[in-house]
């Protein structure tokens, strides 16, 4: 009887994993055919199959769209998994990578660079964003890491406070900046994958793969955290240290992504909740499905951002928030209570 139940659970998990993996692969492929230049799925297929094809379309697909689509996928899956991990270790359903001041730190870094050096594009900007978010992360860990009791509360409060602190500095700098810089920074905060290049793609790939791998290997400890710190201690988890480790990993993911694509909110908050509606998060499948769904979602958001308006790109952050919140609200409204 139990074995029967178990096999239905396993089937459900494997099915979810299979569907999301298939959807992810299809999306990565299909997304390459959308964009300003008119290309069809056939063109995409051709550029993959014909190795010596040096047509204009092939170059668009390989040099512009592919790194961009891959970056979108990485960003979506990275943010989704970071959100899931943070929600788990803080047991707070509202936790998300941006709640902890990481992105405000990044914005601060970017604005500071623009204000001081007048640079408004390029690699330096990403570096400044990365430094800014690492600064925010270090401050957060310095504060939360010292707490022996009530660590979750101090982590959340310190995160929110840091976020406001960095926003205040950012606003102050913007107040003194010229309108052009203000427009540039606004576009940057709303997020875009337009800066994706093959040359820089290795960094998010490396960070996200490594962090995800570590998180997967700690899945039992993560589940143990869900039933409370006390219960986790009785299962042999060193709660304080573990929580800091997970915070560092999710902050690293967020920092790298914010540096490369700007602020893309809501994915980290929403995708884990959506997946949780359907399957138990307590398994490898649950974690993988979360990251695949996040990636797939972001790939299509990027497609929309490229193709909704003619000759113009919509900021990714606007679309994620708009689609995401409507979808999320309807899911809340229509969901059946799980028995």
């Amino acid at each position: 009887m139990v074995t029967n139940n178990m096999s239905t659970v396993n089937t459900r998990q494997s099915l979810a994993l299979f569907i999301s993996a298939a959807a992810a692969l299809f999306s990565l492929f299909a997304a390459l055919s959308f964009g300003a230049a008119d290309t069809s799925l056939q063109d995409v297929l051709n550029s993959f199959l014909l190795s010596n094809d040096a047509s204009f379309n092939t170059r668009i697909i390989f040099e512009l769209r592919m790194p961009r689509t891959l970056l979108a996928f990485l960003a979506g899956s990275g943010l989704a998994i970071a959100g899931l991990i943070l929600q788990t270790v803080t047991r707070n359903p509202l936790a998300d990578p941006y709640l902890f001041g990481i992105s405000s730190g990044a914005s601060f870094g970017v604005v500071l660079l623009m204000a001081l050096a007048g640079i408004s594009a390029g690699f330096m900007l990403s570096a400044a964003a990365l430094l800014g978010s690492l600064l925010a992360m270090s401050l957060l860990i310095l504060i939360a890491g010292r707490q022996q009791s009530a660590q979750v509360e101090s982590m959340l409060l310190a995160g929110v406070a840091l976020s406001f602190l960095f926003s205040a500095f950012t606003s102050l700098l913007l107040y003194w900046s010229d309108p052009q810089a203000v427009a540039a920074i606004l576009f940057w905060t709303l997020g875009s994958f337009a800066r994706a290049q093959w040359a820089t793609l290795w960094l998010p790939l490396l960070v996200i793969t490594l962090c995800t791998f570590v998180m997967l290997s700690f899945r039992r400890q993560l589940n143990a955290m869900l039933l409370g710190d006390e219960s986790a201690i009785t299962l042999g988890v060193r709660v304080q240290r573990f929580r800091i480790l997970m915070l560092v990993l999710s902050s690293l993911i967020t920092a790298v992504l914010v540096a490369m694509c700007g602020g893309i909110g809501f994915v980290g908050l929403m995708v884990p909740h959506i997946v949780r509606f359907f399957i138990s998060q307590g398994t490898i499948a649950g974690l993988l499905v979360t990251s695949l769904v996040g990636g797939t979602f972001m790939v299509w958001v990027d497609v929309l951002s490229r193709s909704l308006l003619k000759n113009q790109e919509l900021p990714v952050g606007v679309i994620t928030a708009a689609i995401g919140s409507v979808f999320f609200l309807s899911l809340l409204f229509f969901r059946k209570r799980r028995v």
Partner: protein
Amino acid sequence: MHTQTPLNTPLLNVKNVSWDIGNKTILKKINLKITTGKFVGLIGPNGAGKSSLLRCLYRFNKPSNGVVEFNSTDIWQLKSDEYAKKVAVVLQETPSQFNLSVFDVIALGLTPHKSLFSSVTNTDKQKVIQAINTVGLVDHSDQSFESLSGGEKQRALIARAIVQQPQLLIMDEPTSHLDVKYQIQVMELAKSLGVTVFASFHDLNLASAMCDELVVIKNGEITHSGAPSEVLTENMLGEVFGVCAQVNNHPQISKSGNNIPHITYFYGYK
């Protein structure tokens, strides 16, 4: 449950343990021994330090003074997962709004036994399934943990403890908010496991019926300990709990053939 300890050395030995928070002393020089195979109950009024004492035993609180020894080793000298292989804990209901299935929660008992990169083997699965059978949650294993009733949740947590394969099971008022039927069911389930148990009780009559030994704590000090028939006296109930009561024998006798003291409370006294 696994290794045989010599009968003369206690499984758990609490030596002169004090614990304070801020300037306030919660536990004062507690001395306590728990022998292998016994079912020991901890009773005392609210705020007496029951939970604080148990927390010192499962390493949530580090004693300010004194040592807790498990099999003659200081528990703070052990690695956290090593200790979790020997001691399992069932707490009062822990709310969680996350979607973990009952199976996942019970499988958490494997945590201290598994290394980071290992996967769940068939033997592990069998262990979990067996524990689910033992606590009678067969029909609920793929439900979400949140959807269980209070009694079922406690049984699931006991199943988790079974999977942990401990030598000692610590329970902190595991039945305090359950209906009578489930109070009895959960405690009898714990007793049937054949493992050494140290549990705090809210219901003194339930403690009397279940325990081989009782320990009474008041204001952070142990005032009485011994067999239920020695401990549960009208004097003790007046002194420690501040109630007026009569102690008779329960119509049933225990499995070991001893009388079970039964308390009848009187009302209108202060």
